[in-house]
């Protein structure tokens, strides 16, 4: 009851936030010089025509002569009907270009997310249970290493060592490999490894510190007094409350790396995913595509935060949704 209302309210807020971002994007774009207009002027001048007339023509063609509010409504309609324009550079609709990017990005993002979710909390709780042992120090060292080293740099180092010298892994990503094949696992191993080491560090640290608190909680003594085995006590009584603060870290950490580092990693490993497409669009001044990928990343961030809020309330029964 309370939960349903809370979910609706939160989803409403997420929609409002994305709407605000879309509006700001529109305004920034409306007041920025349009590259195709200046290009038309340059072209007209080069061909001996009248640049001013060419500009006027181009503005008319692109609908820029319309009043701001009409263009705004047009833009909104385009955004919400997934009509995100034409990519000049790639000669295809922006949505189609992004869709192609998602196809390749998902191939490494999904295993990376699953591995982070599985390994991070387990190693963190194990670390807490064996605090200050050599295993804990090893895990802590690994966590800080992965956290500290820039992903793209680590990727280059791994490529040089395992790709160039040892030749264990292919240097260039091949799009002709089937998705579900050993060859694909083989070529995605290094990028997934780099991203997992990057995201797992903070997940491990947070789960270690949080579970260190819970493993000494009074309820652990109660569990022991009930005859609960050590493994069960950790699996149920430590892991569960640890997931509450950890869910925040996991979502924010995955988002940060997804939006930031994946771009660099895709360039290093030559994966034609979202990051690579965005990068090429920026270099080639492909405005529509840049706008499209910006919107996509924003929506992912908004939805990620929404999920984080919802997971939080589901995990911790003490959080009430009634008053919000």
């Amino acid at each position: 009851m309370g939960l349903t209302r809370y979910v609706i309210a939160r989803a409403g807020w997420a929609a409002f936030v994305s709407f605000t971002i879309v509006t700001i994007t529109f305004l920034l774009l409306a007041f920025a010089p349009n590259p195709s207009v200046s290009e038309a002027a340059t072209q007209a001048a080069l061909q001996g025509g009248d640049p001013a007339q060419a500009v006027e023509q181009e503005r008319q063609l692109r609908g820029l002569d319309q009043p701001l509010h009409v263009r705004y409504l047009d833009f909104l309609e385009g955004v919400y009907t997934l009509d995100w324009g034409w990519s000049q550079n790639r000669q295809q609709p922006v949505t189609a270009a992004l869709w192609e990017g998602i196809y390749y990005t998902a191939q490494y993002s999904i295993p990376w997310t699953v591995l982070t979710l599985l390994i991070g909390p387990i190693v963190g709780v194990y670390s807490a249970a064996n605090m200050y042992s050599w295993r804990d120090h090893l895990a802590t060292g690994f966590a800080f290493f992965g956290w500290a080293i820039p992903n793209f740099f680590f990727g280059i180092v791994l490529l040089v060592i395992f790709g160039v010298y040892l030749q264990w892994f292919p240097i260039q990503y091949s799009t002709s490999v089937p998705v579900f094949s050993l060859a694909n696992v083989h070529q995605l191993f290094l990028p997934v490894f780099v991203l997992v080491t990057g995201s797992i560090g903070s997940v491990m640290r947070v789960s270690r510190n949080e579970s260190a608190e819970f493993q000494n909680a009074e309820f652990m003594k109660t569990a022991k007094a009930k005859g609960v085995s050590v493994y069960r006590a950790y699996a149920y009584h430590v892991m569960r409350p640890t997931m509450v603060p950890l869910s925040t870290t996991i979502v924010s950490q995955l988002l940060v790396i997804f939006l930031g580092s994946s771009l660099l990693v895709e360039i290093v490993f030559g994966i034609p995913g979202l990051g690579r497409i965005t990068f090429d669009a920026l270099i080639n001044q492909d405005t529509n595509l840049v706008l499209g990928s910006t919107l996509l990343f924003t929506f992912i961030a908004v939805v990620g935060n929404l999920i984080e809020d919802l997971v939080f309330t589901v995990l911790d029964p003490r959080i009430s949704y009634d008053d919000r």
Partner: protein
Amino acid sequence: MTESIPTDSAQAEDSTEPLLTVEGLRTKFATDAGSLVAVDGVDFTVEKGETVCIVGESGSGKTVATESITGLIDQPPGMIEGKIRFNGHSLTSMTESELRSVRGNEITHIFQNPQEAMNHCYTVGWQIVEAIKIHDEDVTDAEAKARAVDMLDRVGIDNASSRFTDYPHEFSGGQKQRIMIAMALVTDPDLLIADEPTTALDVTVQGQILQLLNDLQDEFEMGILLVTHDLGVVAQIADRIVVMYAGKVMERGSVFDIFDTPSHPYTQQLLDCLPGRGSAVGGIPGKLPDPTNHPDGCRFAPRCAHAVDACKTGSQPEEITIEGDHSVSCVYYTAGYDRSVVEPPSSESTGKKTEVEYSDD
């Protein structure tokens, strides 16, 4: 229930053996400051169906002593020595998994702070069912739930079946302690170890919880080992009392022995702290000795008004039996000393009447 526990043939069928026998219990902890001896050679017994109270001020080793019984103390850093026998089995020679089958099954615990004693992420029903299922793998979900609801009802939770799915934070402190009692009794234990079960509760609720424990004790025929520093609680519920100070037993006896003729200076001063009885408004002067470096002789000597040189050398004096079960560990009761120095003034002669009422169980 006990088939997994190896039977110690020598004494297993000895019907005169108490439910719980603790002999020479010594629990120490490895700390940075050296070895901390929290419990230093303590003996006590609990008979079937009786209530034994361990009293003493905070830090005297009461909790550690009771948590050593089922090995609740983490080892390391803890180290438990001595003999602990329960229902004819030696708990000290059991493996961890054998001990686990005793914990929460034949010996159960309730703790001081019901606010923190339950996991906030699970419903109370889940947590009671967990206690059932750990010791009974064949029980069905429906059966376990029925037993849990029934137990919640018996400890006085209204609408038990609908409150089964509520979370701990949706209950008051007193209700939480009732739920902890339900969780402890749902496996029908022979011994309940209650560690300051009323300390965190307000006074009106304290009485209700003690009454509940008293009633359930008759119903379940279980022994209760109760740790407390609250002598009011002791008077209400105890059959026998063990007075502990700094890891040693100072005095032991029936509730009447201790309240009517407290014989150790420490017991006397402890009783003087009761409101309406005695004059020790500010408590007992001085503080507990450093547990990593106990004084020679009687542990209480540095704070004792009657201490003589003999109190401060050697080890804690042997326990001297005064009469029946009543014994005391004080130099003045050994041969060659005048015990009248520390003997309590008899209550008839001073006309001072004990203000604490005994329960008649």
